[in-house]
């Protein structure tokens, strides 16, 4: 049995001039918010920027976003049949869309 979530996603590279985008995402109960974001990339818009590597294990800790104003891991938050507002972390520097600068300063590449 498939249900549908509405993901309202923040897009842009400048915190002051972004936009909200809405996508209806079909899901099976139990699926994660990250599953929904990956579905959008494959089926609607491959330019949507998100970061993750482990997909499901909550091991890489890369997929942190704000869901309805609360910081969550997209891989452990479940999709629900309602509007879900997803924004980049507001306390980190914005990179693009849902991607923020989360690496510790000593691990960022800066040239020579």
């Amino acid at each position, binding site marked *: 049995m498939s249900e549908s979530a509405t993901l309202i996603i923040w897009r842009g*590279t400048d915190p002051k001039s972004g936009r909200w985008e809405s996508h209806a995402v079909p899901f*099976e*109960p*139990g*699926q*994660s918010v990250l599953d929904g974001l*990956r579905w959008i*990339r*494959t*089926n609607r818009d*491959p*330019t*949507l*920027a998100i*970061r*993750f*590597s*482990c*997909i*499901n*294990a*909550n*091991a*890489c*800790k*890369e997929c942190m976003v704000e869901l309805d104003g609360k910081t969550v*891991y997209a*891989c*452990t938050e*479940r999709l629900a049949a309602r509007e879900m507002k997803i924004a980049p972390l507001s306390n980190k520097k914005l*990179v*693009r*869309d849902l*991607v923020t*600068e*989360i*690496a510790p300063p*000593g*691990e*960022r*590449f800066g*040239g*020579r």
Partner: protein
Amino acid sequence: MPVEPMHAETDVLVIGSGAAGMYAAIEAARSGAQVLLADRSLIGRGGATVMAQMTVAVALGAETPDHWSHHYDDTLKAGRGLCDQSLARLLCEEGPACIRAMDEWGVGWARKDGHIAQAMAPGHDRPRCAYVDFLNTGPAVSKTLRTVVNKIGAIRRAGDLCVVDLSRDGGDIVGAAALHLGSGAPVAIGAKATVIATGGLTRLYRRNSASANMGGDGYALALRAGAALTDMEFVQFFPIGHLAPRLIGMDPIMWDPFRYKLGGRLLNNRGEEFTQSYGVVEDGKYVITRDTGSYAILKEVEAGRGSPHGGVYLSFQHVPEAELRAAFGPVIDRLARNGIDLTRMPVEVAPIAHYHMGGIAVDDAMRTGLPGLFAAGEAVGGANGANRLSGNAVTEALVFGRRAGQSAAAHAKRISKVGRAANAGEALALIAADAGPRDLNTAAMLQTLQSTMQDDVGPLRSAGKLTRALARFYDVTQELGALPPGGAGGAFDMRRLEWLDLRNMLLVARAVTQAALARQETRGAQQREDYPRTSPEWAVNQFVNLRDDKIELSRNAAPAEAAAS
């Protein structure tokens, strides 16, 4: 808008920061080299290591008397006659030293009566597998190495740096060209020695147990630079990957430690144990090896005796709740939050792509055929032959990482000045190229590749399926074109990154499929339905080279022998 390339220079460039890459960086720095540790994601959090929830095989002799030669015998047996014996020997002989080093660095191996606990695992002749409770082996290994790396000033860490091509000066490797994801800028890296520690290729499959950054990058880098790959046809499927009910926050290989500790029963949809029909009597114990397990499960499904989601059942219903709690307390609670009560229900499991036995061909100093280029960890091919013994992956990462770091540092010491990269301009131009607005859905193309590999280049293979896969890869390669799509540009341009990933993944997919097609027999992880027998004349390793964008296969007379043993 053209982006100016950035530059970096180092003695040793290590690509990838799983256990192999981090150990290589540590050892190279200890040998006096300046190191640049690059990873396409965060440092020390991606790759396969952090996902390894299971065990580490090593002949410590802590649980029962043991010697590396027994571990070696089991490794060769599991490899079905194809192990590179010098690599297998290195893995087994130096494993204990690396495991003890990790112990001193505070990894926290589980203890029993004061000694490091060692569990029994399939394919081993005695209890040999160390672990960190609960299901925490990989994360603990990653964290421990990360902490050591962070304390060494000679190691510069560079996350979000995706290496796109190696740089050549004649036949020598002199660094690499990379895409800095954080800015979108191309980066020219000069290095006296380079270590590929990018892991395997499980991302090529729709159902896999590793990170999204395990797309065979290192194999493609090595191939295009002129190095040889070996045993590419041997992809290990982990037989009991979690299938249903949907579980979040857990890795799909989590049932392995459950089976180590508690046995468990594999059942078909009639509620019957079935492994005995495939020659393995389990009787509540975990003895079935990975190649046989995957085969048995897929054959049950094919015969209509599978579970609703297309796997089989794994049941612990016969295990008392107190025993479950004692073995996996906190995990039992996480399962409960996912609606799973093991005392009342079985779970569904099915084979998932887990590990790649094949990889870059190296000698026992981790040298490739190209001066200046080394490899470590899962990126190396040969040590595990046609089927990897359980528990050998983390051991191999540590041992080969350490050896590669030493070799790379020694090589760098002999070179006074970094060579001039003859081909870097080409790679830097590709990274920044803009083919204009093309309506290219790279995410969907990636999914097509993964489905093709899963369906046609999975554990059960035939000439028909493999040929169909090659035709599909040809089509996707044509669609991909010669240059990345334009558009977003700048930081985290996902289509550009995926275009570069597809360039690698399609090349590696072709290498796996062509090697699988050429091997007209069934052996270990390669199950050919049209050639169901193991053929003595195929007791050889295949090698892959790239010439004029064509995959060339060759083979040796027999697997590499160990030096006098």
